[in-house]
């Protein structure tokens, strides 16, 4: 039966149909698998799973679908015949012929041949390529595979921005994709330029030039700082460039806009201006005050200076102070230094100060200090701590390093003490071992200085001093003539003049005359400071009393005072921080964000800046708020969530610092119970 030509013809058709049918089934299975795998892969990508995982999941899904199709597919020849019959006008003859070919049974051969012949004719009329269109199936399968592969692109940031996002509707807002800030420090610092890309805060030396370069799909850009706002034109290369000088802490806000004028999310960058510290000079050797008996030596002095950027000069300056009483002379000078430049930021110098050439006498002193200037243009000289070299008497020289506070000693002095010291000195001159002339003179000079100190106290108490005590003394008769109505003041005046005389006599080592004058001064002081007397002094115009500002008046004219209740407002930055925190909580609870949310964040940031434009942490918070707005615009849900948490911590930290602690504990019932307990205990006595 199989040898019949009709049979071979039918079998060939069935074989061809079987191949086409199987090929199409495979393609359809792959296509279905890809279609099912595509959403699986997309979800995996959106959930930030690695691409390999997404591909593996897709492959598993495709294989699963193909496996199911494999077991459902009837691969037998009978199945091919049945499928061939579908849609063709074969009247079941193909199926019958295939059955006869497979198992003729008792059917007569001639009938079999007729049936097979009819089946071959019918099968031959069927267009296999139309019945099982492999080409179209292949195209569809390819399309499904492309769709599946395209899900991997969801992980690409570029595609993320292009695709409609599930978290925002803000893809069309003008936005800055990149902001570069080039910080050019002042030339004198010698530091190189720094470039910051998409920074949240930029730090530079005060006086640095900041060049801001922004790029992105925007038609215009408004660049604002705490003091200015400029509209930056778009350059030919599509960027926005603006430069300004960094003077103080603050911010720069960049607001893009499209051609219609609609503004995008503002980016705010905090600015920190680091001040150029002044140089720090110091005297390293000898680095202490010196009290010398004679000014005959040459003093070796070493100085040093450091600066954060660089030094321009280092000098050793001195001032010679000579004279006594109120007659001092000051002479300025410099000591030549041998400089050693350890680095541009650290200089050392050595010099010799010849005291001989300064012609110093006892009581004179030299004040010396290091002076440094840094390289900043217009910088003023900075002086180190000053040290003194004082030429003192022999007794003072011996006490070097053990003397009590000179000023305190002076405050402790009184006219009585001056008299006592003078009497002692006189007594020593009459003793068995009198001091030599030089020592006597030194000690007399010391007492003279103390006498001047006491006199200065009295002059201060009187509210003024005499420009020339000798001239003043020459007019003493005016006092006795009654020019001064108040005798207390007159007595004080006499005391002052007697003290001046005593001082003069002591300088001349005329001890007896000095003692007499000291005692007269004491008597005058005792009269003047009697408790029964007032010391009046004239007041300058500036010191005069304004009677209109004194609480004086008649009791009958007194009336109750009344003023309105003071209203204290919450600090604006605190109130705005609290509002910002509430907004952040609202956004944190959302699953998706829109441009309206970004706008609310921008408004909140503007209000914060208006409340506290110069506070660094506020500027940082506003910068973080604007970065959340950008993350919303760029549909980066993870970044939005992370940023929300971070800026919330900043805001709560700031609020924690300014909010007052609440100490309310317990309920009203607790308080009543405490009150009842307290009273019950009170009835039984308190505790010690």
């Amino acid at each position, binding site marked *: 039966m199989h040898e019949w030509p009709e049979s071979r013809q039918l079998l060939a058709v069935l074989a061809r149909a079987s191949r086409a049918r199987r090929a199409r089934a495979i393609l359809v299975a792959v296509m279905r698998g890809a279609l099912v795998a595509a959403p699986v892969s997309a979800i995996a990508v959106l959930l930030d799973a690695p691409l390999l995982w997404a591909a593996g999941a897709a492959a598993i899904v495709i294989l699963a679908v193909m496996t199911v199709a494999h077991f459902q597919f009837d691969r037998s020849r009978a199945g091919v015949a049945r499928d061939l019959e579908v849609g063709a006008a074969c009247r079941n003859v193909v199926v019958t012929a295939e059955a006869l070919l497979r198992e003729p049974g008792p059917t007569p051969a001639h009938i079999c041949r007729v049936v097979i012949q009819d089946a071959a004719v019918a099968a031959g009329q069927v267009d296999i390529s139309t019945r099982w269109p492999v080409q179209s199936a292949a195209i569809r399968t390819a399309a499904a595979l492309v769709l599946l592969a395209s899900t991997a692109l969801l992980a690409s940031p570029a595609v993320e921005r292009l695709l409609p996002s599930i978290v925002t509707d803000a893809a069309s807002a003008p936005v800055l994709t990149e902001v570069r800030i080039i910080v050019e420090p002042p030339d004198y610092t010698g530091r190189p330029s720094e470039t910051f890309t998409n920074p949240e805060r930029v730090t530079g030396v005060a006086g640095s030039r900041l060049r801001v370069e922004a790029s992105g799909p925007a038609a215009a850009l408004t660049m604002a700082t705490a003091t200015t706002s400029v509209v930056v034109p778009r350059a030919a290369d599509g960027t926005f460039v603006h430069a300004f000088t960094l003077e103080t802490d603050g911010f720069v806000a960049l607001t893009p806009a499209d051609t219609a004028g609609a503004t995008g999310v503002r980016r705010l960058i905090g600015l920190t201006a680091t001040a150029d510290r002044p140089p720090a000079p110091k005297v390293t050797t000898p680095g202490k005050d010196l009290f010398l008996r004679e000014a005959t030596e040459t003093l070796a002095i070493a100085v040093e200076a450091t600066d954060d950027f660089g030094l321009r000069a280092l000098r050793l300056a001195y001032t010679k102070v000579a004279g006594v009483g109120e007659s001092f002379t000051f002479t300025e000078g410099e000591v030549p230094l041998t400089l050693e430049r350890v680095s541009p930021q650290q200089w050392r110098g050595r010099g010799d100060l010849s005291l001989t050439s300064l012609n110093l006498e006892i009581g004179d002193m030299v004040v010396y200090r290091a002076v440094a200037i840094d390289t900043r243009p217009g910088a003023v000289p900075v002086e180190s701590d000053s040290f003194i070299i004082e030429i003192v008497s022999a007794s003072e020289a011996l006490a070097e390093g053990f003397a009590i506070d000179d000023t305190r000693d002076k405050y402790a002095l009184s006219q009585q003490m001056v008299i006592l010291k003078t009497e002692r000195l006189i007594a020593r001159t009459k003793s068995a071992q009198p001091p030599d002339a030089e020592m006597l003179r030194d000690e007399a000079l010391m007492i003279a200085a103390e006498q001047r100190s006491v006199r200065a106290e009295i002059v201060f108490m009187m509210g003024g001093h005499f420009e020339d005590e000798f001239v003043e003394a020459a007019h003493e008769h005016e006092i006795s003539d009654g020019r001064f109505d108040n005798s207390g003041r007159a007595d004080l005046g006499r005391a002052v003049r007697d003290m001046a005389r005593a001082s003069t006599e002591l300088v001349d080592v005329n001890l007896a005359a000095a003692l007499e004058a000291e005692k007269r001064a004491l008597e005058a002081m005792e009269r003047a400071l009697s408790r029964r007397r007032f010391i009046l002094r004239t007041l300058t115009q500036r010191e005069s009393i304004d009677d209109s500002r004194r609480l004086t008046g008649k009791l009958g004219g007194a*009336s109750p005072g009344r003023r309105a209740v003071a209203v*204290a407002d919450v600090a604006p930055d605190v109130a705005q921080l609290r509002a910002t925190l509430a907004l952040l909580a609202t956004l944190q609870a959302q699953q998706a964000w829109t441009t309206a949310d970004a706008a609310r964040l921008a408004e909140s940031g503007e209000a914060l800046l208006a409340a506290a434009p110069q506070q660094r942490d506020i500027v940082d918070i506003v910068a973080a708020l604007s970065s959340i707005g950008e993350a919303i615009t760029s549909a980066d849900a993870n970044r939005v969530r992370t940023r929300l948490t971070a800026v919330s911590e900043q805001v709560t930290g700031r609020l924690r610092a300014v909010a*007052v*602690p609440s100490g309310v504990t317990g309920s009203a019932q607790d308080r009543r119970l405490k009150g009842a307990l*307290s009273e019950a205990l009170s009835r039984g006595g*308190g505790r010690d």
Partner: protein
Amino acid sequence: MIERVCRASALILAGLALVDPGCSLQGASGARVRLLATAGATPDDVTHVREALAPTVDVVETPDPEVDATVVIGRAAPRRPPAGPMFAVVPPASSTSPEVRAIELPEQVDLESRVTATATVAVPAGAAGPLKLTLLSGGIPHDAQSLPIAVGSDSVRVPLTFVPAQPGLTLVQISASLPGSTEATAVATTHVVQQEHRVLVHDARPSWAATFVRRALESDPRLNVTARSVVSRGLATDVGAPPALDSAAALDDFDVIVVGAAEALTPAQVTTLERYLRAREGAVVLLPTDDDALGVLRPLTAISRWNLDRRPALETLSADGLEWSASEFLWPSTWPAGAEPLTTCPETPRCAVWRRPIGGGRVIVSSALDGWRTRAGSDVDYAEFWRVQVANAAAATPERVAITFADALVETGATVHAEIEARRLPNLAAEWQDTLGSRATVRLWPAGAQRWRAEWPAPQTPGRYRLVVASGDVQVSREFMVVEAGTVQRPLPSDSDALALMARAHGGQSVALSDLAALPPQLAGLVEAPPERVWHPFRSAWIIVPFAGVLSVEWWLRRRRGAR
């Protein structure tokens, strides 16, 4: 034969029906037990207990006054002890993860304040590694701490800070975790309010202390300061419209009264202040300036004698990180009962500012006479100290209408419990409202002088609601929140001792969840003699079925053999 049997059976049944015999049955114990789940009980725990008890007792889970006993399942005692006998089944604590035992949070906080929420966290035995604690509100972290666990400690108590963002009921969540363990969370609520407390500063004569305290208070946005300084007889300087200290009713509008030169008060004024403390339950701050005539304050201070102490040097006084100093003190000869220190002084074992309760009110006394002298130092917190003390005292003074929820976070299906205190307000009416405008009247039940109690089933829809209490033009509201049952994790208290005590006090006992076998016999023993039930089967209507059955068989057999 069968016919006869059937006929005889019918006759016997009829006869027995006439006799109506009864038989005695000794059934189950008959005890009806209610299961009540509290914090720490999971649904599985409740199911486990129900299955263990069901063979022995009748188990109900709804409030039923007829129950013989209540079985509390959980680690917390119920808010209200049950009326009858009570047993407790305590689930075990976690042995691997930390548990938030309690969150101490004021019921009401001011929007302008910084609130300390103290969390008590139990750590499993032998736990190692730092315990990480985070306080969140509205999903936002407010504070986080990581602290080591001391060897041998089974719990830690950690203060965490929370800054309110907006008024209203606020949820505060504490999360605790150890390395390698699951995170434990618990939620507490507080009412954030933005209200201006009214303060009266009364200077019995001009004094520096009251002047500088008043100036400090006037700079606080939370406080509205009215003041009177009596400068002479019949002559005073007023800020606003202060009332005289003659009528306690006139002082009702004030939350705190600050009295400067308190020794110059008259006995009548002291009596008025005492009435204010007891009736209004407010706070009075006494700032004496001298030790003369302080006896007049005895009704308020309970101190009969004071000792003036002038120190040679300034002594630093501190309170919660705020420091100031003074050198002149007025020490009580005997400290009154119930006195609480508000400052500490390292040099002096006595407190310069202290508080004493009187009724529901509080008297705050400053024993530091000259603290105002050093107020201007850069590191001196004199003004801040008084702002905090007065603001806290004002916040503790109850409002004219105070609404207190037993728990402002209610699960669907539970009951909302509220207590209302209203002072001198007639015709109170209450209703709850939702955010969409729906409202329902709430019945108020008298619960004492000027107190009312309200209970109503929580709304079925989760969300924010508020209870509004009105009397004439006065209207006060407070929020409560309804959540799905089981969606909120509460602190898991470890008051198993208290639970056991409560159970013993109610005639029951406490058993561990793993030791449930001991419970059914005790519950069965609640009914002293199990009721003897007499069963009368012939009183049942079903007896007609066998009677009709045998008659029908007998009739069918007769018809089959041809008989009629």
